[in-house]
C-alpha cells in the first residue's frame, strides 16, 4: 500500500531544527511571537503568509542571518540537532556552512562559474588539492542540474548566465559545504516557469540528502514542493501541518482565507 500513496508523506520523524517560543524583536517591534516549529530531516517545509507576516524573518533566524541587523533581537530556543544555535560558542560562519541559504534574487559572485562554486570549500578548507576541488565543483553543479549547461565554460563569469541558471548556480554554491539544512527565501520569484520547474525539481531531489525550508508567496509552489507547510500571520505561526491537509482542509479560518485568496 505504502508504495501506491501520493508523495505527500514526511519520510522521516527525525527533527533537525527545533524552535520553541522563538521571539524576534526589531527594536520595539515584536516581529515573531512564540513560534514553535519542528523542521524535519529530509523534508521540504514551506513557510507561507502575507507580506510582513514574519516568515522571512523567522527563516533568517534559523542560520543567524538576523545577527547582521543591529536592532534585531532573538529570544527563545532554536536548536540544530539539540544544540542551541544562539549559544555564544557557536561560530555563525560555521553554522551557515551547516545551514545554507539561497536568496530571492540570484546573487552570484562577480567571479567565474567555477570560482562561485569553489568559494565555500576554499574558505572552509574542505579540500586538499585542485583535483578534490574540481570534483566538488562538478558534483555540486550536477546536483544543481546545471553541469551540462556550463561544463564547457566554467571560467565564464557567473553573472553572464540566465536568471534561472544563476539561481541554480547559487544553489550549487550553497550545497558545496554539504549543509544539513538549506534555507530558500523565495528562490523562484525572479524566474520564469521553466526555470521555476527546474528549481522545484531540484528541491525535490535535494530532499533526499537534507532538509529544505522554503519561503514562498506562491501557494501552488508550496503545495508542489513541500511536505509540511507553516502559515504565518502577523508574527504568529497560525497553523503548521502536512501540506495536503493544509491545502484541502485547513483547521484555522485565517489559513483558509489566505490560501484560497479571500479577504481575511
Amino acid at each position, binding site marked *: 500500500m505504502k508504495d501506491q500513496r501520493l508523495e505527500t508523506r514526511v519520510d522521516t520523524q527525525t527533527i533537525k531544527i527545533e524552535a520553541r517560543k522563538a521571539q524576534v524583536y526589531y527594536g520595539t517591534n515584536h516581529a515573531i511571537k512564540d513560534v514553535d516549529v519542528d523542521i524535519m530531516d529530509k523534508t521540504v517545509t514551506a513557510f507561507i503568509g502575507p507580506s510582513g507576516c514574519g516568515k522571512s524573518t523567522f527563516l533568517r533566524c534559523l542560520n543567524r542571518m538576523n545577527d547582521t541587523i543591529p536592532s534585531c533581537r532573538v529570544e527563545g530556543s532554536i536548536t540544530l540537532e539539540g544544540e542551541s544555535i544562539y549559544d555564544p560558542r557557536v561560530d555563525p560562519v560555521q553554522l551557515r556552512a551547516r545551514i545554507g541559504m539561497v536568496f530571492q534574487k540570484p546573487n552570484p559572485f562577480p567571479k567565474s562559474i567555477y570560482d562561485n562554486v569553489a568559494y565555500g570549500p576554499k574558505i572552509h578548507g574542505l579540500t586538499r588539492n585542485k583535483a578534490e576541488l574540481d570534483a566538488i565543483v562538478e558534483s555540486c553543479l550536477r546536483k544543481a542540474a546545471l553541469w551540462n549547461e556550463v561544463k564547457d565554460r566554467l571560467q565564464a563569469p557567473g553573472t553572464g548566465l540566465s536568471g534561472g541558471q544563476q539561481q541554480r548556480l547559487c544553489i550549487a554554491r550553497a550545497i558545496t559545504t554539504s549543509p544539513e539544512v538549506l534555507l530558500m527565501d523565495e528562490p523562484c520569484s525572479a524566474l520564469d516557469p521553466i526555470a521555476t520547474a527546474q528549481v522545484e525539481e531540484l528541491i525535490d531531489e535535494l530532499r533526499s540528502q537534507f532538509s529544505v525550508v522554503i519561503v514562498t508567496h506562491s501557494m501552488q509552489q508550496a503545495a508542489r514542493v513541500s511536505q509540511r507547510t507553516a502559515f504565518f500571520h502577523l508574527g504568529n505561526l497560525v497553523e503548521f501541518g502536512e501540506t495536503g491537509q493544509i491545502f484541502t482542509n485547513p483547521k484555522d479560518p485565517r489559513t483558509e482565507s489566505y*490560501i484560497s485568496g479571500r479577504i481575511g
Partner: protein
Amino acid sequence: MLNEHITRAFDRDLEAVQAMIMKMGGLVEAALSDAAKALETQDEALAEHVRQGDKAIDLLEESVNAECARLIALRAPIATDLRTVLTVMKIASSLERCGDYAKNLAKRALVLGTMSQIPGAAGSIRRMARQVGLLLKDALDAFVSRDAGLAAEVRLRDQEVDQMYNALFREFLTHMMEDTRNISACMHLHFIAKNIERVGDHATTIAEQVIYLATGSLPDEDRPKAELAGGNA
C-alpha cells in the same frame, strides 16, 4: 460562511457551477415525481415527457464537468473551494444517475400500461418516490446551506426507503406466487422499486458529500441498513 474571494470572478464561477447543480436537482426531483405520477394515472404523455426530459439532465452534467475542469485549470481551487468543486462533480454524477432511474421508471410505466394492474402497487410506488424525492430535496438543501446536521439526518432517513423497498419486494413476491400471470408486471414493478431505492442511495451519497464539504472528512461509520428481504440484493 467564508468571505468573498479577492478575485470576484472566482466567486461568480463557483456560484454558476452550484446553480447548475440546483437546476439539475430540480429537474431530477420533477422527473421522479412525474414518472411516478404517470405510472399511477397511466398518463402516457407525462411518461413520454419524462423520457425526453432526461437529455436536459445529461447535458447539465456535462456542463458541470466542463465548468469544474475549467475552474480547476484556471483558478486552482484549494481548501473549501477545492472541496466545493469535487463535491459538485460527484453530486452531478449522482443526479445524472437519478435522472436515468426516473427515465427508466417512465419507460416501464408505459410498458405496464399494456398489462393487467397489480392493485395498490402504483400507489405504493408513488409514495416511495415521494419519500425519496424528499430525501433528495433535503440532501440538496443541506448542500446549499452547507448543513452537515441535515445531511447526517438524510443519511439516516434512507433506512425508511430501504424498508419501503423490502415491503414492496415481499408484496410483489406474494403476487407472483399467487398468480404466475402477474410475473411480468411484478418484475417491472420490482425494478421500479429497486431503482427508486437506488435513488435513495444516491441521496445518501450526496448527503455524505455535503458532510465532506462542510467538515473536510467523510463520515466513516457504516450507516444503518434495513435487513434485505429474503437475502436478496
